[in-house]
């Protein structure tokens, strides 16, 4: 029968029947969590090869874990970036500010001030330390969870909040979902909601920089779940073919909404090890260790800037909170995972390191946290004067039609007139502003 699926199964042979493997995470809601199976190596254990090395020399670095900060809160081994105390305090301050910002914005969404928010709690080092290891004009192509880059680059908080509130102060004109920032001035590419699209784009930017004989490099961030998309594999292929000056950062926070990293292929390999097959340099890094994150990103930046080629970095970390304000992780993972995560919390670890160096103390930390919260609170108030989502203080209706093309074609002109007319029908006497 040509019609209808052919349900022939069991061909009568005596060969053993096959079975499908479907990955399953170790822990589900209610389970006691023991991460004993996660091999985290030891700080200072791995060598630091020359930046121009051949990818084949990085086998251990792609399967092991580059770590610097030990349980003794000290820096260990050749990957210690030996940053001065001021730089470390700046890093800590950026991380604390990001955390305070996330707390407030999350609450703002719950209070109905906007539609959506995403935190990066527990992953701050993967964006902040990494961004600090790049030059300010290196181009970044982030995913939606790298608000830390903007904060590290000194982007005004008020611009971020205006964007989140989609208000009349939003320089993206209220068009994008909250947190989908864009800042050309900060060399921060416009964020897409479509996963992994930014990864080959970063490669293209890096190729352009090479074509022009520029000295700037590109870096991109993508979640481990999103590495399953074809775009990511295009990025790897183009990066290796053109030896592009690019860094592909894979943030392995273990979860992609409700799917654990096994659904992106982590059960039998690492994400960093993907690099080796492509002929890219690959580093697997403790993503909760701010010093290791900085050191790895700087290594890759040096490599790219020396025309020695691209690097894929896997930041091994943990998504401490839900995927977004639309998600409740208690439905699919054990609540204990967060506290049991063997690599701790990045903010605490950096703070404890500074204290161990005699460069910081708990009082100063408490003061810094207070100041961060206060700054976010005050800026939030300031942004609220520009409006919150759905309360009328938005951009004029006609702006909806701008930027579809460089110039408005006739049909968009007509549609803009229609939109403004509808406004006047609904709110007689109102002006479009």
């Amino acid at each position, binding site marked *: 029968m*040509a*019609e*209808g*699926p*052919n*349900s*022939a*199964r069991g061909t009568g042979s005596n060969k053993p029947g096959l*079975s*499908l493997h*479907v*990955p*399953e995470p170790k822990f*589900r809601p209610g389970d006691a969590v023991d991460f004993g199976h996660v091999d985290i190596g030891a700080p200072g254990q791995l060598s630091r090869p020359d930046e121009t090395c051949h990818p084949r020399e990085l086998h251990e670095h792609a399967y092991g874990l580059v770590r610097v900060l030990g349980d003794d809160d000290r820096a260990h081994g050749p990957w210690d970036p030996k940053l001065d105390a001021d730089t470390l305090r700046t890093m800590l301050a950026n991380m604390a500010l990001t955390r305070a910002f996330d707390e407030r914005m999350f609450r703002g969404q719950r209070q109905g001030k906007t*539609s*959506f928010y995403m935190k990066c709690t527990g992953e701050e080092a993967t964006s902040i330390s990494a961004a600090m290891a790049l030059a300010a004009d290196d181009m970044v192509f982030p995913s939606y969870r790298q608000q830390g880059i903007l904060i590290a680059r000194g982007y005004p908080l008020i611009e971020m909040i205006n964007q989140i509130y*989609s*208000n009349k102060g939003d320089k993206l004109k*209220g*068009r*994008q*979902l*909250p947190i989908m920032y864009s800042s050309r001035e900060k060399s921060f590419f416009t964020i*897409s*909601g*479509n*996963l992994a699209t930014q990864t080959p784009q970063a490669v293209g930017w890096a190729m352009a920089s090479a074509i022009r004989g520029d000295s700037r490099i590109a870096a991109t961030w993508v979640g481990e*779940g999103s590495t*399953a*998309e*074809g*775009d990511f594999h295009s990025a790897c292929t183009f990066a290796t073919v053109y030896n592009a000056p690019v860094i592909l950062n894979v943030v392995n926070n273990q979860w*992609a*909404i*409700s*799917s654990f990293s096994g*659904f*992106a*292929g982590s059960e039998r390999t690492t994400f960093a090890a993907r690099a080796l097959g492509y002929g890219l340099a690959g580093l697997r890094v403790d993503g909760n260790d701010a010093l290791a994150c900085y050191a790895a990103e700087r290594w890759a930046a040096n490599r790219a800037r020396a025309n020695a080629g691209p690097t894929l970095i896997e930041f091994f970390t943990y998504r401490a909170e839900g995927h977004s304000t*639309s998600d409740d992780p208690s*439905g*699919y993972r054990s609540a204990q995972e967060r506290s049991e995560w063997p690599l701790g919390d990045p903010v605490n670890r950096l703070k404890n390191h500074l204290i161990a160096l005699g460069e910081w103390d708990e009082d100063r930390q408490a003061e810094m946290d207070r100041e961060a919260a206060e700054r976010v609170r005050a800026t939030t108030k300031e942004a609220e004067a520009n409006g919150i*989502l*759905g309360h009328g203080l*938005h*951009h004029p*209706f006609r*702006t*909806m*039609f701008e930027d*579809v093309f460089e110039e408005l074609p006739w*049909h968009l002109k007509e*549609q803009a007139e*229609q*939109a403004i*007319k*509808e*406004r006047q*029908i*609904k709110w007689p006497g109102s002006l479009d502003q």
Partner: protein
Amino acid sequence: MSLAQTDCKPAATGAQGRRINMIEAINEALEIMLARDPDVIVMGEDVGYFGGVFRCTAGLQEKFGKSRVFDTPISECGIVAVAVGMGAYGLRPVPEIQFADYIYPGLDQLISEAARLRYRSAGEFIAPMTVRSPFGGGIFGGQTHSQSPEAIFTHVAGLKTVIPATPHDAKGLLIAAIEDNDPVIFFEPKRIYNGPFNGYYDRPAQAWKNHPDSAVPEGYYKIPLGQARKVTEGEALTVLAYGTMVHVAEAVCREKSVDAEILDLRTLVPLDIAAIEASVEKTGRCLIVHEATRTSGFGAELSALVTERCFYHLEAPVERVTGFDTPYPHSLEWAYFPGPVRIGEALDKILQD
């Protein structure tokens, strides 16, 4: 004027008392088909243990096991492609694409492959898959959680496109789609998953339980693909709509006391052209309503068909009410949405003499 919906209800609706929403209806259809047909496979991002970000597959993995209902890697290309391969083996996959906005990475596998297997192999291989995906706006989802890309698929030879507007239809149409031996794109209007949104966004939201079409029979039933549903009987004009816009158009016609004959198309390809012709020949006027962008939208196809086939019965030019030709904006969502004001104006225009 006649607005009694019950007059036009399909015979299959017989359940008394039981009221379910569209998510539950879809879940039931999947459960029934998984139980009836061992070839049916349900898969997609977050659909397994978690049961889908909109909960449409809740409980199914527990019931049917991990090799019948499972999570997939985040690769829409891969999801569609493995569904093609499973279909070639003889299975009947029902993949979910988490949002219609994310179906594009799978387009080559849908357009060049799934849609053409039967044709290029002269029937040796088919792709009996049903790709489910939530679509449409009205949830402040911004440009990547709001699109209505149905016209991209209706333009492809070899794909069927189905869009339910009620829990009752969602269940019956999904069962028919799964049993269909051709690839079906099954778009679920996410704004009406929980209630029949009527476009008046500043009024309290309605729940399905107060709507007659939330009375959904238990067990197996089908609504054949290619049959429109007459939502209201009327004389003044014909309104062609599908998905969320059926409810919006109905509410606006009721508010304005317009004696409209509203057809819920339910299936865009194959289209119920006979129902459209019969209605337009009776009323002499036709308004087409969809949420998708206007240019090359499905409304253009409908307008052409009505003009070609009913020209001598028309008393006014065919009108289209659509979304604007921009990406779906976030803060100006309701200015974009083809709501009561836009529909009301078009009704006034088409009925003016």
